[in-house]
């Protein structure tokens, strides 16, 4: 899932080199932490969080394939 989040983020920001993705495993769930350049925050969040929501939805489709769920934190 982190590969998917990373690919989407790098494709839509202006500074792909500054995209960083970390994967944190809990008991049952996986959290993917996404960080981007400050100027790119709006690019991954979008108006009313619409882009962030779309990223989460797609990440969860990828997670569903492996029978798990994923949380995407943007920081």
């Amino acid at each position, binding site marked *: *899932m982190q*590969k*998917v989040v990373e*690919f*989407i983020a790098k*494709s*839509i920001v202006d500074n792909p080199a500054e995209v960083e993705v970390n994967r944190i495993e809990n008991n049952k769930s996986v959290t993917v932490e996404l960080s981007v350049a400050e100027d790119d925050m709006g690019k991954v969040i*979008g108006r*009313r969080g*619409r*882009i962030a*929501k*779309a*990223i989460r*939805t*797609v990440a*969860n*489709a*990828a997670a*569903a*394939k*492996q029978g798990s769920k994923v949380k995407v934190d943007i920081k």
Partner: protein
Amino acid sequence: MKSIKVEAKTVEKAVEKALLELELDRDEVEIEVIEEGSKGLLGLIGTKDAVIKVTEIFNPVKEGKEFLQTLLDKANINVQVEVMESETNEEQVVFNLKGEKELGLVIGHRGETLDALQYLTSIFINKELEDYFRVLLDAEGYRERRKETLERLAERLATKAESKQRKVVLEPMPPHERRIIHIKLKENKNVKSYSEGKEPYRKVMIEPLNN
């Protein structure tokens, strides 16, 4: 997008070399001549190579397809992206997702994943463009099937509202789905429909009209 600088005896030879290297056709690139190059005197003194810069022109259809396919591959989802040429033109592209077992995964609950993929592809494509380019994503006729389902639902609930003479409230739906219902019920003179609530929980209401 790929961009390379190439040197050769003449501009024409440099272009040939660049296109071969990039594996692109001439109409897919932009050519900038940096140095014309010259044969010099008798081809002996003062010969100068031509230098050009060749940059791939952004092709929204090609790039969009590649974006989607790479995304699905990275997600390990076995679904193929195809361009619906007959519905694709200067202003829009229609992609179709094909796959046997995992198509449901990319459609998601009520098309939620399909909509998210469509939205992200549109963001990606339009980031590079000045004029808005419309991106539509379908999965083996899912959009049409969903439309028919919603229209049948609208008719059924309109009849219910009318016969019971009370308001019927539908489940929350995204804007384009609510629109299908409103359009369908416009032709029905016995009921009126409107939406209430905030996204993403906005719902369609169907109310009987008393004549």
